[in-house]
């Protein structure tokens, strides 16, 4: 997440001081990413150093108000215009864990998949409930929060579907393996001793 660009975008809206920026950011993203006030001030210092914002002075209550410069506005426009860069390939701990699990002997891959699936389903249930509750009592500022929730729901659903696929592949592998290669997992399910790795590299 780019705090730098998020703060710039809020300053393009209107001049604000540090605490206001934090409150505004959290209310617009549904408090999904809590911002540390220290992070806000450090970021403002850097933005000022890079001439993207300037101090407007005191608001009369001792708050230092910042406003965006023309260079800052250009930076915000570039940020909105450019697609978010994907880490290529994305570093996904779950994928790494499963890739290692299927290549190591004595690891119950199906148990790992199920543990993850149950955890992901719980998360999906909670996101879905949060979405339902928010929709039922929708206020003007909730649109941004609903977008964030939808994104989390889609990501989690994709994860569960991917886990289903991993499991289905393992079952296929186990069925095509000879009885000599098969072993029992803790769930009593017969599976190949080293599933996935041979076929998936074709």
């Amino acid at each position: 997440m780019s705090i730098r660009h998020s703060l710039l975008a809020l300053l393009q809206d209107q001049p604000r001081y540090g605490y206001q920026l934090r409150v505004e950011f959290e209310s617009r993203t549904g408090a999904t990413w809590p911002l540390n006030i220290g992070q806000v001030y450090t970021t403002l210092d850097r933005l000022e150093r890079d001439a993207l914002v300037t101090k407007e002075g005191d608001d009369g209550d001792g708050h230092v108000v910042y406003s965006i410069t023309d260079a800052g506005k250009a930076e915000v426009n570039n940020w909105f215009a450019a697609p978010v860069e994907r880490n290529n390939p994305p570093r996904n701990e779950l994928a790494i864990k499963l890739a290692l699990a299927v290549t190591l002997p004595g690891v119950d891959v199906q148990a790992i998949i199920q543990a993850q699936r149950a955890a992901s389903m719980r998360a999906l249930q909670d996101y879905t409930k949060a979405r339902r509750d928010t929709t039922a009592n929708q206020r003007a500022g909730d649109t941004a929060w609903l977008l964030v929730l939808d994104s989390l729901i889609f990501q989690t659903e994709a994860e569960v579907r991917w886990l289903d696929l991993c499991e289905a592949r393992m079952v296929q592998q186990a069925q095509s393996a000879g009885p000599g290669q098969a072993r029992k997992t803790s769930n009593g399910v017969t599976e190949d001793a080293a599933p996935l790795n041979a076929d998936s590299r074709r």
Partner: protein
Amino acid sequence: MSVQGPQQVLELAKVSRTFGEGATAVAALRDVELTIKAGEFVAVMGPSGSGKSSLLALAGGLDRPTSGGVFVESTPLAGLGLNELARLRRRAVGYVFQDFNLVPTLTAAENVALPLELDGTAWKRARRQALDALRQVGIPELADRFMDQMSGGQQQRVAIARAVVGQRRLILADEPTGALDSTTGQGVMEVLRARADAGAAVMLVTHEARHAAWADRVVFLRDGRIVDQAAAMHDPAMLLAQAGL
């Protein structure tokens, strides 16, 4: 004999179902223990062949277990004759199927009223209850339409209305969104959720995680056994912290 509270609408006690005999016997369900209370929405997930549909058929008295007991509102289904079972299915249990199973020559209201009329309810009273059920699923204005005048999502709402009409407190849904697009599918989940919130016990069989996520509890079946369950935490702050956000 199992102990049951008044709130328990469905109980499966050590239920097994085997098809065939001897060396060719196939165990569809093995020692399944599952209870669903009034107001609870339970989703059953699992790969094809894991026993999901067998479970639903046993829960609704469409099939009988090889061993173990099925109780609907404390009534052991094993003790019922065919006529009593049929009557319990009409009065206590509502089904929703993937392909709706509606009668095309009847209107929405007539389809919904059908189980009540089969059960001896007078036409006027059945119609009144059918209209109430159609209101519950959000389509009271479509009461006098025929099936070919309705969209898939609207037909599925009629099917759900038929499943909840009268005093039925157990709703069994087998892939009810299978034939629908995702927005309409979500609408069906909203209706099932609302029925559970209003006090019905709902059991949904699905392979779609996004639909199962509407449930209070998700039960995972594999090879005829319940291997895991997931219940929502209802604590979004903790959840977001766990997600590393």
